[in-house]
């Protein structure tokens, strides 16, 4: 009996261990292997440092600029978060409006589609003219990029309430507000988070585009500036930090999703 208990206690532990390996060690291995190939290539082909720096050069650039880079990192992060928050604040109410009003859907959807169809890079210089050289145009750029996926996913989520839940609240003669608050919006949250994840993965790109056009701060500005004086290692260092930021933001959204809607993982609807 005690042997059985020990055995059954062992099995989940081993399975957990294997899951940990699959979740963390495999991606880490891929990552390390890629950096290794990069490093090897710089040695084998003997590229100049200002054309392709080695991982060591990039590490060195990171270390040498340790007083400069964190500030630039925060600048870009702040722009990204502000633009993202603004996008959520505008997109979700708009999606609610679209889900509830055919008229609003017909009038506003084409406009949103058109705005989304315009290449954002093309608008960047105009945004500078309108909003100046400060944080304004960067936040606006992040907003423009994040806005569309959030509207689309939220509107989709609100339009695809599981029919049995919709019928249930109707049979209880719930008011439209009750229907929205108690069923329709929570049921849409898994969709909303799909949009949020797509948006956050694009958000950093928006901030960098904004900084390319007219900025004196931020990681995007560092890339442009170091390109100007052939400091490719520093440009690479900034790119590494942008990647870290982007991945970190993405997994923050994933963590919030798991905390807020743990049930979504068990839903097979």
């Amino acid at each position: 009996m005690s042997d059985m208990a020990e055995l059954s206690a062992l099995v989940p532990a081993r399975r957990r261990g294997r899951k940990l390996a699959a979740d963390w060690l495999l991606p880490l291995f891929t990552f390390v292997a890629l950096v290794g190939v990069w490093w090897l290539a710089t040695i084998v082909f003997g590229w100049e440092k200002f054309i392709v720096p080695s991982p060591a050069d990039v590490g060195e650039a990171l270390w040498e600029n340790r007083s400069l880079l964190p500030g630039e990192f925060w600048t870009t992060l702040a722009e990204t978060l502000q633009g993202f928050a603004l996008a959520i604040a505008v997109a979700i109410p708009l999606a609610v409006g679209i889900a509830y009003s055919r008229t609003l859907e017909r009038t506003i959807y084409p406009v949103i589609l058109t705005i989304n169809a315009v290449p954002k890079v093309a608008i960047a210089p105009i945004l500078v003219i309108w909003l100046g050289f400060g944080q304004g145009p960067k936040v606006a750029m992040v907003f423009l990029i994040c806005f569309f996926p959030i509207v689309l996913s939220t509107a989709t989520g609100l339009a695809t309430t599981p029919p049995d839940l919709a019928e249930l609240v109707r049979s209880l003669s719930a008011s439209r507000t009750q229907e929205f608050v108690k069923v329709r919006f929570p049921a849409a949250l898994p969709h909303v988070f799909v949009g949020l994840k797509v948006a956050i993965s694009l958000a950093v790109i928006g901030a960098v585009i904004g900084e390319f056009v007219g900025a004196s701060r931020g990681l995007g500005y560092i890339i442009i500036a170091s390109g100007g004086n052939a400091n490719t290692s520093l440009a690479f260092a900034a790119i590494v930090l942008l990647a870290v930021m982007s991945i970190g933001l993405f997994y923050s959204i994933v963590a919030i999703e798991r905390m807020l809607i743990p049930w979504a993982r068990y839903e097979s609807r």
Partner: protein
Amino acid sequence: MIRVDGVSQVFGLRDDIVHALDDVSLDIGTNEFVTLVGRSGCGKSTLLRLIAGLVPASRGEISVAGTPVKGPRRDVAMVFQSPALLPWRNVIDNVLLPIEVMKLDKSRYRNEAGELLELVGLAGFERRQPHELSGGMQQRVALCRSLIYKPKVLLMDEPFAALDALTREELSLELQRIFSEHRTTIVFVTHSITEAVLLADRVAVMTPRPGRIAEIVTVDLPRPRSLGEGGNSAELAHAIAHLHELLFQPASAFEREQAHP
């Protein structure tokens, strides 16, 4: 309690019209248990949804407790084929959902919800999430949710159809027990003849195209009924056989009649 008078229901447009129900009349008494049985497409679910006020009837009158049905109403509860539990609420909060929607004092119904859960054998599951329960347990929660606000009429639309055969039989036995403790008027749609006979005071046999009530069979047997040892299996078998005749034999005769009216 429920009066269905000359009700017809037509779906579709112009050339593609389906007569889901054709001139159906049915009177159901207070605390009576009526099952609607028939093939797919005979209009039994449509009739139920009309009584629930989820769809308006094309023609005819329906009234519950003396007042005409104009939309969903709070003295009529519905149990669906899927449990339709809100996956983000635990068991007790799902049971209390109608209380919340009806803006009643939740704290006063908390005990009641616990008692109902105990009645269906789910004591101790109050804080569980729906995904932790089996299909049969989820359907029991859905039943508690419809009983919590003491409706005059309980409409059940194939509530056990998605469950396995054993759970299904177990739940129909349990429903008899619950029905004996919480008497209400129940209309129960099924396409299981056995289920219909086990549960009902009267079985309304429906035929399709157009949906009509072919016959109403009274099942005058004492409860609890069961197919097991010491149950009244002989009498039940007799009623089941009779319904079989009604449901299987007339299909062809019925279609002949349709071809040469």
